[in-house]
């Protein structure tokens, strides 16, 4: 029996695996035993031990259809079903951990409100954060793909109109999705080699720029510096830079904006 929930949220709340508590395969009897018996046994085992983890995983496995059914009920709330299932599984784990077999209640009777509570709390928390409507997310995904395709086909970045023709959306819809993407795009962490890349060094070579700028540029994170230099000293387009760095053009634009703001503030001091 492997771990049922390998995802980070559930993992974060699980006891850390040590040699002692790495889940063992569920013992043979677990297959035949009733859930009630497993829960009784689980309650008597030391929490976090390997045997405990194996039994717990078996109990979780038996209730995954309940988890899915409950998650499914909340599918229209704008959240991805997989995410909901993950949250519901976390609720199930809480229920398993808190269930007291001596109270005599049925486990599912106890677990259902716990899982539903977890789902509701999740959706309530999410509502507070800025959410991109799913429709816009899907549109943006389609536009991103089309944008890369068109860039390769045309040898330049596409116009809004060309993107609309390619995706079957209207110009307005493309603009709307791009606007949303700009506001919500996140940029992957900088994994650039901290050594100055050749193109950055070459572009800066022989260019005279204000003495104040050089130390500021050198203080920038390597990727931010590289993007800035490629755009303003090597005169590359945002799409070219995006292709070279393996990120999207929207991300390049965002990083560029951020870097310019940093520099502006620093130069004003």
């Amino acid at each position, binding site marked *: 029996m492997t771990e049922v929930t390998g995802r980070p949220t559930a993992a974060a709340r699980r006891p850390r695996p040590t040699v002692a508590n790495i889940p063992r395969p569920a013992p043979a009897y677990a297959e035949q035993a009733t859930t009630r018996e497993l829960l009784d046994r689980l309650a008597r085992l030391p929490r976090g031990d390997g045997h405990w983890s194996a039994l717990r995983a078996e109990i979780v496995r038996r209730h995954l259809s309940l988890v899915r059914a409950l998650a499914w009920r909340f599918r229209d709330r704008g959240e991805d079903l997989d995410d909901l299932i993950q949250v519901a599984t976390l609720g199930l784990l809480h229920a398993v951990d808190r269930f007291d077999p001596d109270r005599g209640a049925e486990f599912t009777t106890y677990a259902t409100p716990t899982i539903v509570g977890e789902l509701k709390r999740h959706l309530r928390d999410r509502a507070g954060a800025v959410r991109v409507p799913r429709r816009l997310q899907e549109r943006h995904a389609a536009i991103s793909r089309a944008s890369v395709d068109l860039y390769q086909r045309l040898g330049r970045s596409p116009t809004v109109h060309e993107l609309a023709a390619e995706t079957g959306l209207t110009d307005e819809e493309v603009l709307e999705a791009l606007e949303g993407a700009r506001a919500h795009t996140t940029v992957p962490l900088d994994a650039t080699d901290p050594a100055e890349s050749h193109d950055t060094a070459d572009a800066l070579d022989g260019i005279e720029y204000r003495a104040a700028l050089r130390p500021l540029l050198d203080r920038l994170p390597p990727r931010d510096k590289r993007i800035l230099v490629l755009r303003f000293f090597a005169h590359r387009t945002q799409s070219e830079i995006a292709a070279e760095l393996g990120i999207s053009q929207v991300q390049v634009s965002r990083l560029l904006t951020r870097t*310019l703001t940093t520099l502006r503030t620093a130069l004003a001091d």
Partner: protein
Amino acid sequence: MAEVATDEDLVVLTVPADGAYLSVLRTATAGLAARLHFTLDEIEDLRIAVDEACAMLLAGAPPYTELTCRFEVTQDTLTVAVSVPNTGQRLPGTETFAWMVLTALAGSVTSDVSDGHATIWLTKKRDGT
């Protein structure tokens, strides 16, 4: 979306001279640039340019004044003129990094400080694609 204007169209937006309103101008810039069939690269560059120009002007604008953004849309050119009341502060010179950035983003950039107003004009011409 309607066909590109044959003559010059004029769009004027006035917002409080406060960084919080720049997003309105950025969005308008993107919308108008898209009408002119600018590429996404050009649209993004222009958005950043408007941001930069406004930031330059806001640094010298007295509080509680207005920032005016005037977009002139022709067949293949978008001119954005941003303007604030000015009480003597000078704009960055053409040899500065800030100016170099603006020029790289917008193409043609001019500025003027007179009649109590500081103005920056950004002129971006559509690439002949």
